[in-house]
């Protein structure tokens, strides 16, 4: 069903964006001379550039469409993904973990596992991350083609191949550098392209207060209905939010997922690297002003029979992801429609570029150089990075076709993060903060955590075990089960790692300097005023977070 018609101006806006990002790839290639330029953007970015890229790597179109749709489905509780489900983890990364990552001069997160533990833990995580990245990249590509086909009537194959080819061109040319440039462009396009939807929605309804007044309490509060899962739209308790989302899933994603952490590695010095996630946290807290407000506006309009607004239906089921495109169609005239579509396209393509640039780094350093060709020269690695980019894009296309023939794979996407990131966070936490954790403990703990998460997913999917047993609640939404499964995977990894470490031999302490707290000299910040330290900005971010939660309690 075609719901958005494009005019000449709209096409010009879209063509301008495509010409710009391809031109950028050619322009930046002149400055991509070494493997460090290609994989780490030369390590010369300011905290503002790295911070916006850090946030944008996560701010894909799939996320924007999905979270607006989720707000329609679950209400204000979706804001937890942006506040408690992100900010504490981002601040923890900047304040506590980044010194170990950045100072050890590693090129990837699995690279830290090699230094702290051993090669097998690095390869295990490298392979899991590479597979996850390609799956997410392919699903992202599939989702983009689906959105363009559904809302604009574009040809499925043509839109997928055109965008994949564009990403391939600019990432192959200059790697992370062009990925970061396009991510920052995407950040501004998303704000200018989509924030107006929320503004227009609020103007039509009357005020933000009126929007909240016209939806049920189960949908318009953040915490006050969390004691009883039957009283809120997400059917979850505060325990599931805090432990599953706020702790395990959030920390697992924001502190260990190389897709986002790689942006901080591109910073020019340690202070900039530490400030990267802290600055990003302020912008992250603002994203609900696009997705949550738009989702609530859609909810209010859909409940009003006089509004003439309804979401699309697929086979009798409501297509929640259609909320944002339907609002664009409602409010945007010619010209603005092109901008809104370009913002979504930029989100899809930058999301794919982010996945591919993380994949080519992990493939090149943590699998190829680590296992296949240990003596590869820097020039050869730069060549391999470019080959991996093309290979990664082709594999993403294969995954996208697989997703097309097997649409329920979309359901697996959220689960994939709890398979890989949730247990990895336990390994990282123990690795950075407890010196006696052993390589054997880390490897078997990580394997047990990842394996248990997959088994729990399959067990609830095929009804071997009731989902309510995993969520410890007779009523639990799919989202609630995801949160609890992540928590259990983390706990199993944590417990197994500690138990095995108690009976195996740790690495000598002298090999752990710079990698573990207590064995690493603290940075000399005695002469730096508190108001200029990353900790000060993290404190301000934390205060804003508390105020937002209290205000929307």
């Amino acid at each position, binding site marked *: 069903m075609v719901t958005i018609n494009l*005019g000449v*101006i*709209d096409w*010009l*806006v879209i063509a*301008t*964006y495509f010409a*710009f990002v391809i031109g*950028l790839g050619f*322009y*930046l290639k*002149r*400055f991509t*001379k070494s493997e460090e330029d290609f994989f780490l953007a030369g390590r010369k970015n300011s905290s503002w*550039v790295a911070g916006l890229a850090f946030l944008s790597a996560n701010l894909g179109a799939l996320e924007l469409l999905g979270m607006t749709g989720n707000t329609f489905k679950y209400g204000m509780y979706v804001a937890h993904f942006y506040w408690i489900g992100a900010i504490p983890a981002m601040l923890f990364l900047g304040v506590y973990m980044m010194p170990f990552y950045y100072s050890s001069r590693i090129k990837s997160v699995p690279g830290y596992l090699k230094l702290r533990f051993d090669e097998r833990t690095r390869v295990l995580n490298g392979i899991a991350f590479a597979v996850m990245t390609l799956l997410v990249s392919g699903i992202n590509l599939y989702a983009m083609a689906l959105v363009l086909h559904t809302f604009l009537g574009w040809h499925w194959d043509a839109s997928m191949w055109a965008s994949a080819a564009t990403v391939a061109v600019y990432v192959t040319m200059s790697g992370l550098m062009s990925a*970061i*440039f396009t991510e*920052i*462009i995407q950040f*501004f*396009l998303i704000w*200018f392209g989509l924030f*107006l939807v929320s503004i*227009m929605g609020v*103007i*039509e309804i009357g005020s933000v207060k009126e929007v909240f007044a016209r939806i049920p309490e189960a949908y318009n509060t953040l915490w006050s209905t969390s004691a009883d899962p039957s009283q809120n739209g997400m059917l979850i308790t505060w325990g599931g939010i805090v432990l599953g989302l706020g702790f395990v899933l959030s920390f697992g994603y924001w502190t260990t997922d190389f897709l986002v952490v790689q942006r901080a590695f591109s910073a020019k010095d340690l202070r900039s690297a530490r400030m990267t996630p802290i600055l990003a946290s302020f912008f992250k807290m603002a994203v609900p002003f696009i997705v949550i407000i738009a989702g609530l506006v859609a909810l209010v309009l859909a409940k009003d029979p006089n509004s003439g607004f309804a979401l699309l239906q697929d086979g009798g089921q409501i297509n929640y992801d259609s909320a944002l495109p339907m609002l664009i*169609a*409602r*409010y*945007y*005239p*010619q*010209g*603005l429609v*092109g*901008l809104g579509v*370009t913002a979504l396209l930029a989100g899809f393509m930058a999301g794919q570029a982010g996945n591919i640039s993380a994949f080519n780094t992990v493939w090149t350093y943590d699998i190829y150089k680590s296992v296949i060709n240990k003596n590869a020269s820097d020039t050869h690695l730069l060549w391999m990075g470019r080959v991996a980019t093309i290979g990664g894009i082709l594999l993403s296309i294969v995954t996208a076709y697989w997703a097309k023939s097997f649409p329920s794979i979309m359901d697996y996407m959220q689960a994939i993060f709890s398979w890989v990131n949730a247990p990895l966070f336990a390994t990282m936490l123990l690795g950075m903060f407890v010196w006696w954790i052993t390589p054997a403990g880390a490897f078997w703990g990580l394997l047990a955590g990842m394996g248990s998460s997959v088994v729990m997913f399959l067990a609830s999917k095929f009804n071997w075990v009731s989902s309510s047993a995993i969520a410890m609640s007779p009523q639990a939404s799919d989202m609630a089960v995801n949160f609890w499964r992540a928590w259990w995977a983390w706990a199993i990894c944590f417990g197994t790692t500690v138990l095995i470490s108690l009976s195996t031999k740790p690495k000598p302490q002298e090999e752990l300097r710079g990698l573990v707290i207590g064995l690493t000299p603290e940075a000399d910040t005695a002469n730096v005023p508190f108001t200029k330290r990353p900790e000060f900005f993290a404190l301000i971010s934390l205060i804003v977070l508390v105020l937002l939660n209290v205000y929307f309690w």
Partner: protein
Amino acid sequence: MSTETVKMKSIWYVVGLLLLIIGGLVLLGGILNLISPPEHKTVLANLRPDLWWGGIIVVFGGILFFSHRNSH
């Protein structure tokens, strides 16, 4: 020209240039819609969001572009 002597343009300059062009196109669309109103009107079209939002993008893009045109 050797790349050693060429410095990379600042990302803010690049973002400013793109916003200037895209904002200009949105503004142009707004002017065209004003001169020749479309048959199908969007909700709140009377507020002319394409005109003022396009204008805001042009101003923001212009500030970024001109303030960083010499920075690298």
